[in-house]
């Protein structure tokens, strides 16, 4: 396998059912504690002014909260670090509200609701909150959004030789859209990554990854190999039904591996596509 991209993971942020933050999650993911499903709790984004804090939707709060966690554990300055925001759905509640409003004979649209309908809303609020003028990418690859975000972030880190914060997030749609797009739970993952051998890359990263070549799907979008599953059946159900949770096998591997340990993971890149990753703890 040709490894085109090598990155070092410095820090992680996580909010998912039963995994309230990365520190608490390591006990569950490493197998020392049992996973218990629980509703997520998202701390309000303290960096936003009170009026904005009230106005932003759940996806913005979730994205910012996991980004905060990751930066808290990183030497990269939030005010000067490029970001990649990846989500398959953006703000589903906002989408529903807008779609309903547009069925009226003479539609009246809230200007704020319209501004908040663009896919890059979390990126915008984050950059304002931390005063960051570095570039930011907001992208979507449906079920493959986490892997697409990982590729974009890793590419940016390696080509520009800079740290990059990847923020993947997902919030379920309300009905009636939910029936057409069932996302089981909200989940946010943030990773600060650096080029693997960069001159400023911090020593002792959580893991070094070699991101391999995507393996295309077979007929009917069947995967060539089954992606790496979670050890806990409940967490694996989460992995399969929430796109941002496609990151979980990587996080579980990091939580379980001993220093120097090597492993091969296959992440679900959506639509039956496999993304192989060689990892070193």
């Amino acid at each position, binding site marked *: 396998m040709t490894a*085109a*991209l090598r990155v070092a993971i410095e820090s992680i942020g996580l909010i998912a059912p039963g995994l309230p933050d990365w520190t608490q999650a390591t006990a569950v993911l490493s197998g020392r504690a049992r996973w218990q499903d629980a509703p997520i709790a998202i701390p309000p984004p303290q960096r936003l002014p009170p009026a904005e804090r009230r106005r932003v939707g759940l996806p913005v709060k979730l994205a910012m909260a996991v980004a905060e966690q990751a930066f808290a554990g990183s030497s990269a300055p939030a005010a000067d670090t490029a970001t990649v925001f990846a989500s*398959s*759905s*953006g703000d589903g509640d906002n*989408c529903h509200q*807008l*779609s*309903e409003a*547009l*069925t009226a004979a003479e*539609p*009246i*649209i*809230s*200007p704020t609701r*319209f501004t*908040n*309908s*663009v*896919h*890059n*809303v979390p*990126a*915008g*609020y984050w*950059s*304002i909150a931390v*005063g*960051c*003028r*570095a*570039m*930011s*990418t*907001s*992208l*979507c*690859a*449906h079920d*493959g*959004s986490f892997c*697409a975000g990982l*590729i*974009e972030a890793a*590419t*940016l880190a390696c*080509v*520009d*030789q800079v740290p990059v914060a990847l923020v993947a997030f997902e919030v379920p749609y309300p*009905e*009636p*859209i939910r*029936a*057409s*797009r069932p996302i089981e739970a909200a989940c946010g993952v943030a990773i600060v990554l650096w080029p693997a051998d960069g001159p400023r890359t911090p020593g002792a990263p959580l893991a070094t990854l070699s991101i391999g*070549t*995507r393996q*295309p799907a077979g007929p009917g979008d069947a995967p060539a190999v089954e992606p790496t599953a979670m050890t806990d059946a409940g967490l694996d159900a989460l992995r399969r039904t929430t796109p941002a949770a496609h990151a979980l096998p990587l996080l579980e591997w990091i939580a379980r591996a001993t220093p120097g340990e090597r492993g091969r993971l296959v992440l679900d890149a959506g*639509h039956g596509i496999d993304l192989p990753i060689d990892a070193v703890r």
Partner: protein
Amino acid sequence: MPTPYPLRVSAFTATSCLGPGNAAQLARLRAQAGGLAPCRFLDVPLKTWVGEVAGVDEVALPAPLARYDCRNNRLAELALRQDGFDDAVRDAVRRHGPARVAVFLGTSTSGMLEMELAYRRRDPDSGALPADFDYAGSHNTFSLSDYVRRRFGIDGPAMVISAACASGAKAFASARRAIQAGLVDAAVVGGVDSLCLTTLYGFNSLELLSPDPCRPYDARRDGISIAEAAAFALLERPGPARAGDDEGSGGEVLRLVGTGESSDAHHMSSPHPEGLGARLAMERALASAGLAPADVDYINLHGTATPSNDLAEDAAVHAVFEGRVPVSSTKAAHGHALGAAGALEAVIALLCLREGLMPAGLNRDEPDPALRSPYLSANRSAALDVVMSNSFGFGGVNASLLFDRITP
């Protein structure tokens, strides 16, 4: 900064309200004629002018991809059939291999019109959406790149960059990095946005729609004219020229030589008043290309005709280029194609390079004394070597692209 890494633009095409394909864009630009018309889209009664593409509903997608049927993908299909672009991509996939070609496309609307229409047909009892609504095939932001990658049998990375009105330009930048990193050897890039209710009523609610054809850089400018468009380019890693490359009369090659991106960190729907983020994007584009401001021959502005955009952009352009480079906004001709704008205007920039044409900024009857950059009110012919194209979007996202023309 990494060393400059120019990419060959092997093929490109654009379809807008100016017509289908490059020849149609050029003909209207040469005639200094626009394609905007009073809005007659669906039942929308708003007093505004729009750039609607004719014949989109008559386009049929290939049968195996029928689930992707929506206005946005039909518009994409219409554009892909122009200028031999379809053949150029298939040839690239053959030469490099399917896994060595990527798809980076920009959109802000995707197929959201389908959801808007589906909401009008909810079950009166259950409230359910109609059974024929296909979320992944139409509404989801990824639908455009999913359609294009399947259409061409491309197995490399595929994603949609969705960053409001900078989407189409940012797709070029992400693709450049993927090729430079060695992930792939070529990429289909571009952007597609289509008319829908959300953008028309949304911009109306922000009071950013002009009731008349938009007039960028005019002292009395009063807002945008929404448009739809689809524009694509085929980027390939540096290499020797091949027969069939899109070349000018002198065996020229067109290249993407620089990209620059930034964030305003200022406001969600208004630009930084001095265009600070815009300035950073332009400076980063120049640095990535190893070029100086004096090397640029023409700038195709974002130039949306809102009072604030043109003022902020002009401040930024003047800070970098000091009034030495001619500028214009072609949005007066083709409208603001939102998520596709950056791609449409990238193709226009390429046409300018190939044809030696600096297009007029139409509808500018009364110059604004606050705007200092030398604005073209009439077409000008000149041999152009380097052209810049700017795109800025909600959330304070900025992108600037640099293209050049060389004879290898």
